[in-house]
């Protein structure tokens, strides 16, 4: 059995078609549903907040609104990187649970690519790895244009606590 990404029509991937905002993180491509994205801004000074997990960098001031930002690299247990002029903060809208209003949170990513339209055919299910791993964060995998994009589940990322071993088992694009 190969670890190749198989694009198959899967009911688990139904309903994933749509527009995705692609970004890079640690050299890998990821995607977020556009619906979750509020806006994209440059890096701005972060005010650190104490007694938070290390991937919670702090808060930023977005036109008067204070938004918590997390470093997705640290969140995905990647080595931290310095912030450069390409580093962006994707302001995502995390749907509220149980009647809460939607949360605005920021995710620090390396670069923002584009908004692409993905059809069902382009999205494949999360591949099966021979190793039991935490793949809740992955909505699926897209192989558009030959590059593998991991589609992320916002709620899972921003809601769930815990160390993510996802990207530790990220398959290398071939």
């Amino acid at each position: 059995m190969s670890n190749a990404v198989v694009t198959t029509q899967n009911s688990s991937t139904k309903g994933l078609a749509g527009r995705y905002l692609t970004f890079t993180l640690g050299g890998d491509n990821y995607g977020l549903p556009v619906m979750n994205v509020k806006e994209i801004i440059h890096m701005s000074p972060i005010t650190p907040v104490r007694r938070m997990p290390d991937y919670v960098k702090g808060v930023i001031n977005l036109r008067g609104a204070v938004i918590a930002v997390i470093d997705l690299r640290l969140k995905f247990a990647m080595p931290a990187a310095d912030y450069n002029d390409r580093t962006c903060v994707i302001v995502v809208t995390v749907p509220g649970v149980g009647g809460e209003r939607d949360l605005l949170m920021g995710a620090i990513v390396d670069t923002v690519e584009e908004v692409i339209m993905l059809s069902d055919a382009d999205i494949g299910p999360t591949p099966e790895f021979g190793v039991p791993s935490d793949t809740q964060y992955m909505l699926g995998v897209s192989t558009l244009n030959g590059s593998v994009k991991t589609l992320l589940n916002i709620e899972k990322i921003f809601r769930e606590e815990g160390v993510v071993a996802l990207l530790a088992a990220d398959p290398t694009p071939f």
Partner: protein
Amino acid sequence: MSNMMTIQSRMLVTVGMIISLALVMIGGVVYGVNRMNIAVESVALNIVPSLEVLDSIKKDIYFTNNALMRSSVAIDPNEIQKHRSNALSFQNKLTEDVKKYDPLVVDDEDRRLYEEVRRTVSEFELAVKQTSSLDSSGAEYDRAVEQGAAVAAEAVVSAVTASWNYNIKLSMGDAASAKSTVSNVNIGSIAGLLILVAMSGGLLTWLVRTTSSALGSVSNSLGNGARDTASAASQVASSSENLSQGAAEQASAIEETSVSLEEISAMIRSTADNARKAKSLAGAARTAADNGANSMDEMKNAMAAINLSSSEVAKIVKNIDEIAFQTNILALNAAVEAARAGDAGAGFAVVADEVRSLAQRSAAAAKETADKIDTAIANSRRGSECTATVGASLTEIRSSVAAADQLVGDIAIAASEQATGISQITIALNQIESISQSNTATAEQSAAAAGQLDSQASTMRDLVRKLDGLLGRKSSSHFDSLSGAAFNRPKPVSRGVAVARRPRSEALQRPSLMRPDAANEMIPMPELPSEGHDGFRPLSN
């Protein structure tokens, strides 16, 4: 003792003794002759005049007496007067003659007899005087005459005769003494002559013997000295020949050395020229390196300017890129909003896409430009690195050129010092050469001196032979037969030519003829007179 006397003194002694002997002999003869002369004189100057005077006295007496007798006999008064005057005159003469005898008296006996004569004469005179007073015709007169005067006359005559006899005796004595003197003189002369001859012979023999022995020893010494001189002369000649040969070899070695020195000199000169050229080339290289360094500096400045402009352009490009990025983000935001707006935002989505594509184009262009800039900067950096490398190379070149310049300077100094040293060596070589030439001249001189010495030695040998001949000795056999023929003067050494050694065979040929064992090789010429070939005869004298 007699050896210490010089020949002069010996001869003086001999001659002096001979002469003194002769003088003694002559003195004896002279003395004898003087004695004989005395006797003769006595006879001649005394006896004979005495006898004459006595004879005159006697005659005077006779005549006087005769005159008186005649006067007494005569009858004629004139004759009587004449005879008496004659008697008077004879008497006066008698008186004078008696006086004449006075100085002739020789001794006491003669004086006594003379006094006797005078006495008798004075008695006669008295008697005559008595007669004069008488008349001549008287018998008293005759008596006076006959007895007085005649007797007195006879007394006178006897006295005169006694004196005459005495004088005769004296003369006989003189004659006898003269005879004895003559015989003494004869004997003495003969004896003295014999003694003289004997002593002369003895002295002359002594003189000759001692002189000849002294001269003989001197001749021996001279002969030895001549032989030694000849041998020394031959040694000197051989040493001077060696010296001249050594000087010749020295001269040829000097010639070779000076040729080598000239070559070295030429090489040093060319080295110095090359050093000068190298120095000038090094200077040109340094100048070029300096120029290169200056150009390098300019290039660095240009590159720095390029970098500066590139970095400024890069900044601008970066600005553009940022703008494009921002625009992209805006476009993305717009697309997001459009997507969230759904269908209402479709047109907006298109606009957002277009904007996004524009932004991407800008970004692409900016990226391209940035790439170009990067390339340019990389090229510039490469150029800088090359510049740095070239600069380092140029610096190395400069330092190497400086070092080379220094070395070339040292080479030039060393070359000049070498040239100085070479010139000093040349001067020293010239000195050595002149010394060598003077050595050769000295060798020639000493060879000439040796030849002269040898000729002097042979002359001395001849003189010694003559001396021996005079002395009546045989020529000593210690005379070697080496003659001056063994001495060839060394030929003058010419400069710059390796003088071949003089063939010694011809120098030794003639001496070989003179060796005793070479007599067999001689062509026998017994008939020819051997005078003048003494030195060439084999040593078989």
